[in-house]
């Protein structure tokens, strides 16, 4: 291994990196961010923005650190006066035609042009006496506007469509300072993954119509989460403003989704903001809310009294913790179970292996398999009879499901949203994935953690807590896990992994994952 590593000095710090590492990445290892625009770790590097120029001793010219490989014994200066001056010069050039409309720009606050100008730019530009270039805003696609005036021509969007989406609908038209990003005039930017160009854009040139003027970046709270749209398990950030989810963005994970997420997942956030949530526990026949103690005692009583068949129906977004503790609650009672797993079309991101919008539109079917919970929903529902006890866990029911459940005498409902068509013995409010900590297991068997982004409504508690608390009431020796991390660690099916082990990148479970889907 040693001969495949090179040692170099960057701004006085000695770093050792694998041979072939570009200077810009080597500098990151030294904790130094070389300002850049066109470079992106998941795209080919064209070295056109000239922002990442650094000085390397013994080389006659400054070199772009994004395409210059680290060499043994190199001495690199990122912050030498010459390099800083060169970058200030580039920033001044970039600002020539960039409108200073930051107050109405969506990117403001998370804009790389703002950041680096603030960090290294000149206090004032010298291009004061000329009008800036003006071009009208262009409609690029169903969710994308191109604000030409703000464009700094880094070509990240062009390269994404060309080299990652493998659908080259964008290009640079014209030359010189008249150049702009152009779209095939017969096409739209409507590829299933095209929303990524908005994230890739370092400035506010490509903006999402959905997010347009919705919130300022500095008002947003960002929470690490996992997309619940399909079994791919793309790592995302849930961006909230005052408890309202305003957008989802991809969070880098090279093992799962690189830096990308699909448009279907990106748009899948409106359910998170539903206002019609179950907030209180209710026990039939009274309509009045009851305390958790009453509800949990009721559920324990019903379960203890049941010696008939039990059927557990899980919604598609129930966490590993929720699944594990509900299944523990009904352990030894011969319960039948199934998780909802709607199917849809697939949409691969062609340039990246093993990345696609998957047909299985649930994030945790592999997690359900850990506990013997299958996805044969129809057969499970059609097997319901009048003597069944049905446990619903955050499900969305079709008319057929409702008809099948109508024959059942006793329904316990752990619900986020109440279905008025279903009569329940006991209904308790549970949190959804945006309000709790938990783990999903994706189709590759990778267990990944998500964190709470919002405050739960009313009395809502995590599913695992509801199940564990009911379970604990059956025996005085039993203790309720205090946290989701404890709830996870106490499940033997999770291979001894802990939330800490999963970190933010997730970890592969040891034992093979049952095939997902029908």
């Amino acid at each position, binding site marked *: 291994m040693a001969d495949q590593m090179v040692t170099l000095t960057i701004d006085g710090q000695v770093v050792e990196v694998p041979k072939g590492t570009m200077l810009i990445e080597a500098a990151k290892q030294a904790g130094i961010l070389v300002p850049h625009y066109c470079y992106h770790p998941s795209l080919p590097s*064209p*070295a056109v923005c000239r922002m990442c*120029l650094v000085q390397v001793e013994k080389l006659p010219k400054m070199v772009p650190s994004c395409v210059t490989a680290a060499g043994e014994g190199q001495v690199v200066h990122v912050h030498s006066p010459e390099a800083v001056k060169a970058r200030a*010069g580039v920033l001044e*050039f970039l600002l020539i035609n960039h409108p200073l409309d930051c107050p109405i720009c969506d990117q403001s606050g998370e804009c790389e042009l703002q950041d680096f100008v603030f960090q290294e730019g000149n206090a004032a530009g010298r291009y004061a006496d000329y009008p800036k270039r003006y071009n009208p805003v262009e409609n690029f696609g169903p969710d994308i506007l191109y604000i030409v005036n703000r464009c700094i021509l880094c070509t990240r969007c062009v390269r994404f469509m060309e080299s990652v989406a493998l659908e080259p609908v964008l290009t640079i038209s014209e*030359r*010189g*300072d008249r*150049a702009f990003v152009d779209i095939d005039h017969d096409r739209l930017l409507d590829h299933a993954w095209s929303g990524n160009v908005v994230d890739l854009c370092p400035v506010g040139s490509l903006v999402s119509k959905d997010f347009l003027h919705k919130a300022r970046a500095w008002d947003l709270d960002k929470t690490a989460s996992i997309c619940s749209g399909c079994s791919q398990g793309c790592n995302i950030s849930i961006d909230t403003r005052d408890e309202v989810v305003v957008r989802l963005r991809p969070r880098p994970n090279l093992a799962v989704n690189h830096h990308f997420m699909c448009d279907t997942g990106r748009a899948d956030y409106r359910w998170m903001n539903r206002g019609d949530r179950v907030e209180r526990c209710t026990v039939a026949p009274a309509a009045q809310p009851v305390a958790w103690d009453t509800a949990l005692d009721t559920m324990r009583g019903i379960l203890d009294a049941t010696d008939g068949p039990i059927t557990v129906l899980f919604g598609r977004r129930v966490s590993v913790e929720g699944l594990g503790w509900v299944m523990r609650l009904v352990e030894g009672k011969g319960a039948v179970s199934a998780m909802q797993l709607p199917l849809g079309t697939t949409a691969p991101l062609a340039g990246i292996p093993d990345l696609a919008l998957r047909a299985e539109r649930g994030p945790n079917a592999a997690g359900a398999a850990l506990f013997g919970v299958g996805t044969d929903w129809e057969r499970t529902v059609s097997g319901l009879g009048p003597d069944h006890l049905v446990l619903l866990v955050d499900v969305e029911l079709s008319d057929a499901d409702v008809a099948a459940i109508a024959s059942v005498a006793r329904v316990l409902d752990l619900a986020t949203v109440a279905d008025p068509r279903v009569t329940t013995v006991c209904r308790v409010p549970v949190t959804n994935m945006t309000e709790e900590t938990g783990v999903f297991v994706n189709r590759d068997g990778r267990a990944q953690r998500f964190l709470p982004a919002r405050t739960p409504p009313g009395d809502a508690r995590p599913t695992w807590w509801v199940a564990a608390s009911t379970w604990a009431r059956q025996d005085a020796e039993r203790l309720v896990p205090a946290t989701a991390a404890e709830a996870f660690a106490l499940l033997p099916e999770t291979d001894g992994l802990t939330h800490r082990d999963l970190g933010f990148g997730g970890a592969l479970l040891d034992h093979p994952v049952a095939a997902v889907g029908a």
Partner: protein
Amino acid sequence: MGWPHPIHPRETPVLSTHFGEVEARTHAGWVARGGYEGLRQALTMSPEAITEVVKASGLRGRGGAGFPTGMKWSFMPKEDGQPHYLCCNADESEPGTFKDREILRWTPHALIEGCAIACLGIRAEVCYIFIRGEYTEPGRILEAALAEAYAAGTLGADAMGSGKRLDVFVHWGAGAYICGEETALMNAIEGKRGNPRVKPPFPAVAGLFGKPTTINNVETLAAVPQIITRGAAWYAGLSLSSPKSTGTKLISVCGHVRRPGTYEITMGLPMQDLIFDLAGGMHEGRTLKAVIPGGSSVPILTAAEVATCITDYEGIAAAGSLLGSGGMIVMDDTTDMVFQIMRLARFYAHESCAQCTNCREGTAWSTRVLERILRGEGQPSDLDLLLDLAENMTGRTICVLSDSCATPIVSGITKFRSEFDAYLSGARAPALQEA
């Protein structure tokens, strides 16, 4: 010079011997003048032997950089099992340069023969001649000559009966100056936007279609057949000056001279003689003010610098400029240097491919500042601004287009500062009206 003027006694016709002879354009006419003898010999030689002859001749790239041609060929990998390509750069777009045009329109077979020999030297079977889109007349003549060469069996699957494949294709440019940059030219041939590529990898490693490629200028390749037939020593002996600058050079002289045109000189001729003797000197009552000796991208020389300048790679470098492509722009005392420099900057601003920030924005901004000075609206700080912009445009980009724009600005301000000051102080009336 040849047509329409007789060859000047101080010229050394090698490439230009048959300029003006219509029959030389035909295959038969070219063979009658000793043409394709070089190719016949080269077909019996090994690639190493061909490369060695070219190396020994001291031939250097005539497109502008002056890189030793034989050495460039020797960079090509040996038996590596993949196709090699030759590109001929006939995208002669440098302002003031029109020497390749004469080769294309009068002796197209010299170029075709040179391409064929170079292919043998670098183990390529295919050559692409990338010709400037505006060169309709020379291009048609070249295409006609190519068709004749194929019809005569000189090119094709069995070139001259040797059993070797030699194919030469013409690819028409669409009018972008930047496509004369070697890697942009390759992108253009591949059907992509003509943007220069980041180097490394260099063309000899990954060039056209990602394969090892050599790219040479028209004039360079056209000189190769005679180097093969007459020998490296003959060519190397043609120099009047430095052993590093050998052979002859076509110089296209334009501007304020009595006889503008393309002159073939041996390396080492004094520049003064070239301008005042061969090109006929200044018009009545005018005096020499400045010369841009090697196409618009090189530093400007003053009359005093020209007086002692030797016309070869080293001589012009010693005078502070470059031989470049050999496109010589001569300016007399009536020239408004500020206007000339603005005109050059405007050209580069128009032709910047828009990839690199410094070039895209710097060329346009410099042009605007120069236009402002010419409108009489310049500010005292403008010259420092221009020099600072030039610094940010030099050595900071993928290719040298932005450097080429900065070079005349810097040398212009340094050498003709009083003319700028005249505009800035209002001593001189504005040369430009509203933009």
